[in-house]
């Protein structure tokens, strides 16, 4: 999932202004693959462990010493923004833990902060990412 210029990005009750991108990546961290006696191709495959990683990119307009710290936990939520239209908006939310904060400075983009998080499921079975249609709310 890739959301450009999401609206109202909030983590643990604190709004993060200037977010230009939120990327939600899904990675298989454990794959079970099995073969039988009949031939060279696997006859079974299943993803038995997976990880939802989130990358939030923020353009900083000024100095900022209040960045989140690795290990910080809370609910991350944001709204999709479809060409500025209010229709079809969706709210994305998840429990997440910060795993890294990094900064980059360039002439083209200015100061950019990247926050990496991992999404956490409530019970291990439920998808940690929830989507809700919000329409024009």
């Amino acid at each position, binding site marked *: 999932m890739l959301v450009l210029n999401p609206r109202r990005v909030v983590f643990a009750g604190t709004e993060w202004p200037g977010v230009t991108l939120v990327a939600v990546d899904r990675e298989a961290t*454990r794959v*079970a693959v*099995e*073969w*039988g*006696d*009949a031939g060279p191709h*696997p*006859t*079974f495959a*299943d*993803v*038995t*462990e997976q990880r939802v990683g989130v990358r939030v990119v923020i353009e900083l307009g000024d100095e900022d010493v209040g960045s989140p710290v690795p290990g910080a936990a809370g609910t991350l939520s944001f709204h999709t923004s479809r060409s500025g239209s209010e229709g079809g908006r969706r709210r994305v939310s998840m429990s997440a833990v910060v795993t890294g904060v990094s900064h980059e400075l360039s002439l083209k983009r200015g100061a950019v902060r990247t926050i990496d998080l991992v999404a956490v499921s409530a019970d291990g*079975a439920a998808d940690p990412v929830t989507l809700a249609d919000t329409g024009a709310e």
Partner: protein
Amino acid sequence: MSSFKGLDLFGSGPHRFSLGRQGQHVVPDYLLGLGGAGSTPQGLVELDVVVKGRLVSATESGLWALRDAEVAQLLDPPDPGLLADGRGREWTGMSFITWTEEPRVEKGRVWSVAYTAVFRRFE
């Protein structure tokens, strides 16, 4: 379909058959009190057939039923039967002697657990 005593124990998921070590059981002479660095053959080892695979079920309870069915065939004393690989190879007089599961039951799209089952033809 592979089977043991006519039971489809492994058909829920992929599995492969292999043979255990075959040949002479050789014992160093010093263990026999004979001295020296030599060894003495004690005869041919018993035949082992090893089945490695994965039990697969759509539900946790279904997987438990499959696991219980395996363990139910571990008998004391052993009760030999016919083991068939489903591809034309059969071994008579085989006893189901050990059932070993991998440390974790896997839950992805389905419930599954990898295993190793060993059968032996006792002489």
